[in-house]
């Protein structure tokens, strides 16, 4: 057993902390990014690409740096700490990982180096209005084979960053009945294809989640990602990594909230004393510390298990997503409690984090959804 970062991970962490502190300067900037339709700046995006972050998970032959899931999680934790906005997650994890898992060599050669150099943004169109669940067998958007193409019809909902994506991976049913595991296919779809309508949703976190409507969207058969009808496993793999990556992001946010609130408790004076001397406040801080500690190790264990190719990774990813989602929510609530009225003001950092905690809780499976996975993995 070992609970330490490698030297490379330490360097990555420090570099990320430094870069993001400069790139995401203050609350006003975050609020501007939330109002802004794109939600990030080219300078931020290019800076991250120059640091090699876009290719962190891709092998060198595809322009990446051949990092592990543990490396990615290390970086993601810093992104959560900095509350990084923009389509990094959707491009690298949702788009990139799915191509890496399911794509042909030609598709990998075409897409991954572009992602790695920062010239391509992507996302994954998976959940739908009727279910909003991440279970791929619930997909009802249809893709019908017509000559050299497939024609996609239907609506995807809560698609992150579709508004700024150049391409998206779309999961659609090509065969089988509703709720069948088989019959789900993945397609690489150019977001500028005729028939695609993207509308930005207004969300609690001010992130860029979209409705994507497909009206007779033609996709060449060559854009099929993996075998037709066999997309289920690839999506599950991506979701497993995405859940753990989201945990790392939430863990970083949790750490940041705790840091801010504890620092405030040490300096804020009421009744002639720093409020941190009061046990009522101390115990709230202890609750933050416990919830956050418990988040660290489960996140890193799940990442480690994915790297090791362990079958229990699925259960542990679900355990992590359940725990960390609820822990971050709790930590954010306590943070507000300690800051009192001042943390309720829109220009304060607290709302940036507490609103994201809510978005994170529902991304890639809420605790209720994840507990169902755990139940299944326990043999129930």
């Amino acid at each position, binding site marked *: 057993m*070992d609970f*330490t970062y490698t030297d490379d991970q330490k360097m990555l962490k420090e570099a990320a902390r430094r870069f993001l502190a400069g790139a995401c300067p203050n609350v006003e900037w975050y609020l501007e990014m939330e109002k802004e339709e794109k939600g990030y700046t080219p300078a931020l995006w290019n800076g991250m690409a120059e640091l090699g972050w876009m290719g962190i998970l891709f092998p060198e032959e595809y322009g990446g740096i051949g990092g592990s899931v543990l490396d990615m999680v290390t970086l993601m934790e810093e992104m959560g700490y900095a509350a990084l906005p923009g389509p990094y997650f959707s491009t690298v994890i949702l788009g990139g990982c799915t191509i890496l898992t399911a794509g042909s060599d030609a598709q990998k050669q075409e897409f991954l180096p572009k992602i790695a150099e920062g010239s391509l943004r992507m996302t994954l169109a998976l959940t739908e209005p009727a279910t909003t669940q991440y279970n791929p067998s619930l997909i009802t958007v249809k893709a019908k084979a017509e000559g050299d193409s497939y024609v996609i019809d239907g609506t995807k909902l809560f698609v992150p960053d579709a508004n700024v994506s150049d391409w998206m991976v779309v999961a659609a049913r090509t065969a089988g009945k509703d709720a069948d595991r088989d019959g789900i296919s993945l397609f690489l779809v150019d977001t500028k294809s005729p028939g695609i309508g993207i509308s930005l949703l207004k969300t609690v976190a001010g992130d860029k989640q979209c409705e994507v409507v497909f009206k007779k969207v033609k996709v060449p058969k060559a854009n099929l990602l993996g075998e037709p009808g066999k997309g289920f496993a690839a999506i599950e793999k991506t979701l497993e990594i995405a859940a753990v990556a989201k945990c790392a992001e939430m863990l970083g946010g949790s750490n940041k909230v705790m840091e801010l609130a504890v620092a405030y408790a*040490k300096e804020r004076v009421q009744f002639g004393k720093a409020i*941190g001397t009061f046990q009522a406040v101390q115990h709230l801080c202890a609750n933050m510390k416990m919830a956050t500690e*418990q988040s*660290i190790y489960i996140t890193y*264990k799940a990442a480690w*298990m994915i790297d090791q190719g362990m079958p229990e990774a699925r259960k542990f990813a679900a355990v992590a997503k359940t725990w960390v989602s609820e822990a971050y929510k709790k930590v954010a609530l306590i943070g507000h409690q300690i800051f009192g009225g001042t943390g309720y003001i829109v220009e304060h950092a607290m709302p940036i984090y507490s609103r994201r905690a809510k978005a994170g809780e529902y991304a890639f499976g809420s605790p209720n959804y994840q507990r169902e996975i*755990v139940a299944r993995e326990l043999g129930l």
Partner: protein
Amino acid sequence: MAWDFGYTKEEDAYKQKVAAFLDKELTEEIARQNWEDLGLDAEGRAFGKKLYEAGLLGWSWPVEYGGKGLSPIYDFILIDELGKRWSAHVPNDVAYTMVGHTILRRGNDAMKKEFIPRIVRGEIEFGLGYTEPEAGSDLANMKMTAIDQGDTYLINGQKTFNTESHYSDYHWLAAKTDLKASPYKGISLFIVDQRAPGITIRPMITMSGERTNEVFYDDVKVPKNRLVGEVNKGFYYMMEALMSERNYVFTPSRYYPYLNMIIDYAKKTTYQGKPLSEDPMVRQKIAQIAVEIETTQLLSDHARWMEWNHQTMTCEPEITKVVISEMEQRMVDNAMQILDQYCQLEEGSKHVPLKGRIEWEFLHSFMTTIGAGTSEVGRTVIATRGLGLPRG
């Protein structure tokens, strides 16, 4: 150096060996004596001896006292494997996981030679003698006195909640040796023969049926060589040992048997013609139990890892302690909701499910957030030592 949540080949081999032995030798009766603090009787002592003879005790102890000189991870593996089989600790728990370590750290050579080999062989047990009627959370407020009389100390006073005293061989006793000094600088530790003249042990029966004791000292003479380390350093030794002791005592693995039991129950019990395991509410509750056990196990793994790597622990084992004890209460509440009305039935009752373990655990779980330090004291430790908040 890199994140790693697995065991080495050698550690894994030991784990397999322990598992195979326990599956064969650890009966439910012995596990219960241990888990329910019913005491270490003849069977428990025989089991401790067997554990030693099978070559499974002492791997983490110094070679010169009969150990193998390896990392504490081996003892943690042993405790975890016991925990997975309803047994919370090694049979001579206080000796092996608490007192022995302080003797090694602070005892003189003669004391080490006298006690450590017997601890490593699983032969002797100690009872903790800290708490007094006026010294609960405020342990330094103890009143028991040990007066220097040349060759001996003369001890008088009363201890309470001394759980092991009715079956232990020795009392690990804290008493005041300097009545004028501040409480933190006037306490010393002693090893006292538990059956010494002048000691009276009276049972206190808890709501879950475990026995703990009041122990009265009336002019008890204790030889000088039974003073542990230096005089008046006792409180410091107790605090120094506290974090490590939590690493050994608060073992999340002991909740896996409950989880497995409830899973089994949900699969085999039908409600309105369907197994309970198909009820989404039941599935959610069981999954939540699993989530909390797995995440707590990692808190424990991390704190223990800090210990065997000689890192300074500020509050990590305290976190395990507070989390685990509150988790236990949530776990039993979830389990009772799954059993519904049957959760009230105690062992021996007609219709009792799961041998009444859940009902017993419900009663037991009131203690967990109090014993060995309340959750409130724990949170204050985490806030002040872990997060650096100022003391009030």
